[in-house]
């Protein structure tokens, strides 16, 4: 099994046009085997692009195709509205990879989702997306570096480190159930705990790799959750041990404020929760491979 998305997931790509990022990635996702059933564009309703039927709105796309998930890569000024449109149309899983959405928009959008559209889960923004190897890939992760069959679930705040994790596990013959990139923004729609809970409940996931970074306190909260609720082993890496305070390290959410949000504090909290904490991503990969062997 896998979490959040699988072979039954039907994806609508929002904001599709012959030159859009959405089309580029949507076609890659379709080539991977994802059911990309529709696109939306208010000016192109009724058209078809590369065999993908285009509708003016998400609601029309859902009515016509039964789409259950949406993929958003529209520019920052339009992303919040796109997320809410998907939710209002009854989409249950929205993946938004858009980087650069203002934090104020994210805060309003997240709370509107919670208050008005409880049935919708948002992944991102500013994330690489999600892949359940061999079943469904929504976002920008390269399908080539993932290996189907489990038993490892991956959840990560970073993009490139996630690819490295996938690649290093796959090369050692260790597959993945699902790899979720939750993104590096201050108000992520889906957090570590959401994913850890789903992995804990997924019978095919035997171990979880968690990749954190500086800023906020999600890793500490995840550590508490692991200590209280998880029986499956977790291996973690946290980037940014040497990051200076007060500077955003690439991601809008990756900032040490005062004494909070440091990698050291996060690593200590995870260690205390019984998580195996690696000093770098490769070490985390090596440890996970050993762990999977031990699990048989």
């Amino acid at each position, binding site marked *: 099994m896998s979490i959040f998305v699988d072979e039954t997931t039907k994806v609508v790509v929002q904001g599709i046009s012959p030159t859009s990022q959405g089309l580029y990635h949507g076609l*890659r996702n379709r080539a991977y085997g994802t059911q990309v059933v529709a696109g939306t564009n208010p000016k192109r309703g009724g058209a078809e692009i590369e065999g993908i039927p285009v509708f003016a709105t998400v609601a029309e796309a859902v009515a016509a195709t039964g789409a259950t998930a949406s993929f958003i890569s529209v520019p*920052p*000024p339009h992303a919040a509205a796109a997320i809410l449109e998907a939710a209002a149309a009854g989409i249950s899983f929205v993946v938004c990879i858009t980087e*650069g*959405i*203002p*934090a*104020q928009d994210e*805060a*309003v959008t*997240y*709370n*509107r989702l919670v*208050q008005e559209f409880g049935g919708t889960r948002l992944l991102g923004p500013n994330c*690489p997306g999600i892949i359940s190897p061999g079943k469904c890939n929504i976002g*920008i*992760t*390269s399908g*080539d*570096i993932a290996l189907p069959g489990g038993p490892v679930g991956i959840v*990560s*705040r*970073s*993009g*490139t*480190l*996630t*690819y*490295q994790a996938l*690649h290093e596990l796959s090369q050692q013959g260790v597959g993945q159930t699902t790899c979720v990139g939750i993104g*590096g923004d*201050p*108000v992520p729609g889906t957090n570590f705990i959401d994913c850890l809970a789903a992995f804990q409940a997924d019978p095919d996931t035997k171990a979880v790799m968690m*990749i954190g*970074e*500086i800023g*906020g*306190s*999600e890793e500490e*909260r995840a550590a508490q959750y692991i200590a209280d609720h998880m029986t499956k082993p977790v291996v973690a*890496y946290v*980037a*940014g*041990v*040497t*990051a200076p305070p007060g*500077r*955003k*390290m*690439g*991601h*809008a*959410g*990756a900032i040490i404020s*005062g004494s909070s949000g440091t*990698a050291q504090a996060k690593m200590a909290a995870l260690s205390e929760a019984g998580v195996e904490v690696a*000093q*770098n*991503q*490769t070490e985390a990969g090596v440890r996970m491979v050993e762990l999977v062997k031990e699990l048989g």
Partner: protein
Amino acid sequence: MDLYEYQGKQYFRRFGIPTSPGGVADTVDEAVTQAEQAGYPVVVKAQVKVGGRGKAGGIKLAADAEEVRQHAGAILGMDIKGHTVHRLWVEHASDIAKEYYASFTLDRPAKLHLGMLSATGGVEIEEVAATNPGAIARLSIDPVTGLDRAAARRWVDEADLDEAARDQAADLLVQLYTCYTEGDCDLAEINPLILTTEGRVHALDAKVTLDDNARFRHPEWEEYAATETEDPRERMAHERGLNYIGLEGSVGIIANGAGLAMSTLDVVNQVGGRAANFLDIGGGANADVMAAALEVINADPSVKAIFVNIFGGITRVDEVAKGVIEALQRVDLRSPIVLRLDGTNAEEGRSLLAPHLSDRLLAEPTMLEAARRVVTLAGA
């Protein structure tokens, strides 16, 4: 983007938040002119993006032109925690009856806005939070519904501000919240917020951090870009559209992805080196971006060796290798480079690079080995 106090106060005024009359001065003569306009006595304040200005002697009261000359002369050029003072803010000195604290920021775990208000202002709020947490009235605000006047008024009561300040403070807090939300701030903080002996409430300081992601809808922020950073390396990088932060070590870093770039800094540190910078070139990693990145690193005199750490996901490693080779032909590098290329099509990428390898361009298969090599080179 952090604003200087004077920029923060100018930003506050857009939203109607009262501040003292004053102006900016880059010279002693300008300081006197601003003081004459603001009216004596005045406060001469160093403009640096760091706390503790008062203790460092960067904030002085002046009763007349002579004292303004004396203080402005002493403060301009002063070093405050590694920041050189190039600019002053000169404002009319307020008669302070009480000092309060007010701020808005995002409460990340709660995913709500957080207002903090305290009748104990003028000191570090972290200190108040540690020693007397009960002195801070915290207000969680739903970003969808916002903060209205009635809620602000109740909050002021809860924080126990002086009776004379309460109505004005409630108005000001609504204005500050509007500044924080509509003005796209990550942080809008007033410390101290004062009640004057004449019974007026206004902002005596301004600490504003703007959300860089909101630049697209704030053309007025353009004027802040010129003073955004004092680090010439950062200025050069930002002009080239690069995501760069200057640090103090001797190993130049180029990586794709923020997490990998951070991780690269960590691994360099782990093997005994220190990074000269953080630089995330994003997913693209083509020749133009790579050349721009190398130019910026090359201009940093403290860099002794360069670590290029690329993991190819969608960006294939062979494309990255071509980009590196082309960039190297365009930039005349002072320092040797150690490359670690891994990911999709890594083998093809390494074969492309093989004929170009030398003692100035080295390749290592793993991040750790590459880090060891580059740190050795930087130390030699």
